[in-house]
């Protein structure tokens, strides 16, 4: 590090490593604790995550707007090239460090209430810790290979958590899909790494960012890395795993959607923004825009409380990716941070509803799908606290003024405004789409809130429903407060407050009052419209199934793949082994022919010789009758012959 830092390096490092490794420690503790005391993990895990959050707070406080902190160790060396592990903390990563640890801490505490009584608490809290650790690894890693390592670990932990309820077949299926979709994206990321290694011989973020050559391989490399982002941040066309992943426990959904998984993609985009060439950025923007529209429209038609939120996440992620593609990674990051809080809050609130209904159901044995909003209504009376939290976080999602979402969305719209330029081009379409998405967001958010909390109670009318326990309410409160404008800036109409300035790297100050006013009135208009169409549902099978993407994958990818696998199996059995067996049989036939030849021809000759010998043998054997007279006769006969022989 060149300049002397304004903080104590030893303390700083201790904090950075505590923030990173305490979640891993929580994982270890949860695994090692004896089964008898498994309830202890509901205390140890939140506590360790709290410590981690505090440490992350110190890190953020120390590095914010300071010289970035770097530190590198040698991992292994191949042919003189070093593969390193290291830490690179600048404003973006330090901020992300705090967001991830804080949300993870809140989700851990919430889970203590939500998951009470689960038979597999150890594994659940262990994997929460590991999930957080993997995400933190992505956040602070100083090179892309290390990012990739943690990137895959995030995929693994999400697999374990989405499929936490092992006996639920649908959960296992969703977990598998999530991992495979992520793997597809990861393969793209890996190819990006290969391109980087072949051309730049380095994965280090700082080294890569300082080599300013605009080279053609950078387009390919950045687009390949973007494939990883598409997989992890659920962008078009790899988004369908995210709604499926709702089969996991709700706190896990909160974590995935807010801090530890989908956020990784947008974060990476901001982190390696320097690699992207103008062409690649246009591609990114287009992908983001398509995703934002798809997600928003699909959310309109969903009936499952969690699926609405899931599609909303897809749409919001598309919005962030669009911002990054439009040259404003700082706006994307700002929205990522605000979204992390209000979306976590929405999920925890949704979880509170589901939790309360499940408990009530267990007491009354009255079965209905507690997540289907068509069965719900009028819960504001029985769950006033949850209702209030829902309103606050929903308003932030809709981007109503005085909420954090308004400001971060404002930042994105302002950058789009500049990006689209003055002359008419396809960028105007995207700019327009951003407003469409913003409008639709308000519609589906308030449709959700009103159908769950307003109107008359439906299936729940006879249930006695109680608010969730304190351990769940406190995290919800914290997150609801964090959904207000104040976390972004003191001025509720100007996004360039505490955070934005620190994320800005090179682009100029962008606040445009006209955009703020337009955005605010547009959202209010949408709210009014949402009120007008209250109670109506869109019955579109296409939107409900998210444009049939899953079915298309089934037909285009899954089925041909299994057919191909079947063909290879048959090739092995019929073709390769067939040739082998034919060769073996051919050899057998030749051997039989040779055997016959042996018996009939060669052995024939030998047999004849044997018969001859036998004849001779039996003839001479007749000389040896066993009678002494015969021997004497032959002896005398022989002697006579001998005498005649010698005499002649």
């Amino acid at each position, binding site marked *: 590090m060149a300049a002397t830092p304004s903080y104590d390096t030893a303390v700083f490092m201790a904090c950075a490593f505590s923030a990173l490794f305490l979640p891993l420690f929580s994982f270890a503790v949860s695994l090692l604790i004896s089964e008898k005391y498994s309830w202890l993990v509901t205390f140890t895990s939140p506590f360790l995550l709290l410590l981690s959050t505090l440490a992350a707070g110190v890190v953020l406080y120390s590095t914010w707007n300071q010289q970035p902190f770097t530190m590198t160790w040698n991992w292994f060396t191949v*042919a003189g090239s070093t593969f390193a592990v290291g830490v690179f903390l600048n404003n973006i990563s330090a901020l992300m460090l705090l967001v991830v640890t804080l949300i993870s801490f809140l989700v851990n505490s919430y889970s203590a209430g939500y998951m009470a009584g689960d038979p597999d608490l150890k594994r659940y809290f262990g994997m929460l810790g590991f999930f957080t650790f993997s995400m933190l690894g992505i956040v602070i890693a100083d090179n892309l290979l290390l990012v990739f390592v943690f990137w*895959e*670990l995030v995929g693994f932990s999400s*697999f374990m958590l989405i499929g936490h309820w092992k006996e639920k077949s649908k959960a296992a299926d969703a977990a598998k899909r999530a991992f495979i979709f992520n793997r597809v994206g990861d393969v793209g990321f890996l190819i990006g790494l*290969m391109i980087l*290694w*072949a051309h730049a011989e380095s994965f280090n973020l700082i080294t890569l960012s300082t080599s300013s050559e605009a080279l053609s391989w950078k387009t390919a490399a950045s687009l390949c890395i973007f494939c990883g982002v598409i997989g992890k941040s659920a962008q078009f066309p790899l988004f369908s795993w995210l709604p499926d992943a709702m089969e996991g426990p709700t706190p896990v959904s909160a974590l995935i959607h807010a801090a530890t998984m989908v956020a990784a993609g947008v974060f990476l985009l901001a982190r390696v923004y320097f690699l992207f060439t103008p062409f690649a950025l246009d591609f990114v923007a287009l992908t983001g825009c398509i995703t934002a529209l798809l997600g928003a429209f699909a959310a309109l038609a969903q009936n499952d409380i969690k699926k609405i939120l899931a599609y909303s996440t897809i749409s919001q992620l598309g919005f962030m990716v669009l911002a990054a593609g439009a040259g404003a990674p700082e706006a994307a990051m700002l929205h990522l941070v605000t979204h992390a809080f209000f979306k976590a809050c929405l999920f925890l609130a949704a979880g509170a509803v589901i939790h309360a209904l499940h408990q009530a159901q267990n007491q009354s044995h009255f079965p209905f799908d507690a997540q289907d909003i068509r069965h719900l209504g009028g819960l504001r009376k029985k769950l006033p606290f949850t209702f209030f939290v829902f309103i606050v976080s929903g308003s932030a999602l809709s981007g109503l003024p005085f909420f954090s979402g308004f400001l971060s969305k404002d930042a994105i719209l302002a950058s789009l405004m500049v990006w689209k330029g003055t002359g008419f081009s396809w960028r105007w379409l995207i700019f327009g789409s951003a407003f469409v998405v913003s409008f639709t967001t308000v519609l589906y958010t308030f449709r959700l809130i009103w159908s769950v909390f307003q109107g008359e109670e439906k299936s729940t009318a006879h249930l006695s429903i109680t608010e969730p326990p304190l351990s769940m309410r406190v995290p919800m409160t914290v997150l609801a407060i964090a959904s207000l404008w104040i976390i972004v800036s003191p001025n509720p109409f100007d996004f360039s407050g505490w955070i934005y300035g620190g994320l800005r790297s090179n682009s100029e100050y962008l606040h445009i009052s006209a955009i703020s006013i337009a955005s605010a009135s547009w959202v209010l208009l949408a709210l009014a419209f949402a009120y007008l169409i209250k109670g109506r549902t869109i019955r579109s099978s296409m939107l409900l199934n998210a444009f049939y993407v899953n079915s298309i994958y089934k037909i285009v990818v899954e089925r041909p793949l299994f057919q191909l*696998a079947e063909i290879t199996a048959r090739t092995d059995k019929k073709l390769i082994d067939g040739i082998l067996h034919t060769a073996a049989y051919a050899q057998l036939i030749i051997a039989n022919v040779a055997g016959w030849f042996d018996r009939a021809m060669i052995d024939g000759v030998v047999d004849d010789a044997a018969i001859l010998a036998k004849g001779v043998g039996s003839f001479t054997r007749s000389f040896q009758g066993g009678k002494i007279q015969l021997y004497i006769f032959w002896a005398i006969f022989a002697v006579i012959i001998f005498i005649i022989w010698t005499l002649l």
Partner: protein
Amino acid sequence: MQEILLSLLLFTPLLAALVSLFFPATAIQLFRYTTLVANIAQAFFLILLLGSYQNSAGLQFVEHQPWITMDLGSWGTLKAEYFIGIDGLSMPLVVLSVFIMLIATISSWTILKNVKGYFILLLILNTAIIGSFVALDFLLFYLFFEFMLLPMFFLIALWGGPRKEYASIKFFLYTLLGSILILIVMIGLNLSVHDPSISGQLVHSFNIIHMSSPINFISFSILDPHNAWQIGLYNARQWAFLLLFFGFAIKLPMVPFHTWLPDAHVEAPTPISVILAALLLKVGGYGLARIAFPIFPDATIYFGGFIGVMGVISIIYGGLNALSSKDLKRLIAYSSISHMGFVLLGFASLTAEGVVGSIYQMFSHGIISAMLFLLAGVLYDRTNNRMIANYSGLYSKMPWYAVMIIVAFFASMGLPGFSGFIAEIMVFLGAFKSNSVQGPLHESIAITATLGLVLAAAYYLWTLQRMFFGPFNLKGDITSDQMFDLNKREFIMLIPLAAAALFFGIYPQPMIAIIDPFAKHFAEFVIGAGKSLTLNP
């Protein structure tokens, strides 16, 4: 003792086998413990060996003794030596062999039939495997190489499953064919190479190190690089390379010469499957890197692209076959084929990264496949049934078993943190880089190979979903009281393997430091010698 340390390591099992011959056949425990003691003694010698091994010193612990010297009159003299040594290529494989043989012995406690014969064969196999990894004289190597076949054949044919005769004969014939191809080249090489250390006299040598240097070829001999005989499409050296390549590729095994492997695995008893996957396949990869590539660098470059493509075909074809396998052990066998494709790909790249990746992959696959086959054996021991469709929801009944399966599956998929990741990423980086450093592989080959990663995720996760998740259910004639979790002996085998896969995934430097000097030299030598022989023949 330093001078004969490697020989001690090599012949301890053979000595134990000799001693075991004199025990009465009923003394079952005695055979088990004799073998175990031999394995532990080997491990002890190995630790001594590692203690004084120097990473950058090339061949070490060399032992050089005359073995066969035969005067051929006007043909000169034929010389074979007892010549062994260890370097960055053989060290990881010897470490692996000692480790896996120990695990296999523990796993052999379940063998109850003809225990005497079994353990004696196991000990002979041990010496043969390690011998082929350390032999530096071609004839000696070939002797060990052939000697692996016989014990393996009997171990499958006598202790195997229902179709053991078919599987063992298939295994035997396939690998015998490979051996014959290698034998032909060995004779040709012996005729063409002389020993430069003896002047004034023509000494035909089997020394692999001499063979790896183009100047030691006799002028106008059949394999002389400077006056290559043209036979049909290729010259004699290229034909010889192809024979060697296919000889070793059968062992590896490479698609389409792989069909012996699934059958052999399905029928072999668990410990033999473990040895087969973890060690025997590696002899194929080792032979390529020790013999085929350095002796024929010109042909290696000529056929490099072809080898890379065959590697990718193995990766994808093996993966697809694994996806359609209905038998758990068959699935693992096909995943082995897929993973050994990476070995071909990495060697063919002729980059230091790729070669490190290949050797690391051989080491890592040895550990992980051993774990996988042990786990398949755990199930088979309990129910005599390995059909995937007969099980579901095992997680709730056998949680520890499921945890181990999850660890092994993800390790095999190349999840970071496990040794397979380091191996695969190095192979990919090397294969992609190959083209830009004058290696033989085009970038598209590496890109196509990444499909194997998605396939691996698909077949493993699908298996997890079908067998371990969902509600607990059994089909066929399996009863639920047969299903019990891992016992202590099984833990003793599985935990060290899992720990090793993790250790070499998180902290690869010690192993890579051993491999790296060899890999660097290998890549530079093959490319350098190959290019110069191709350009100025």
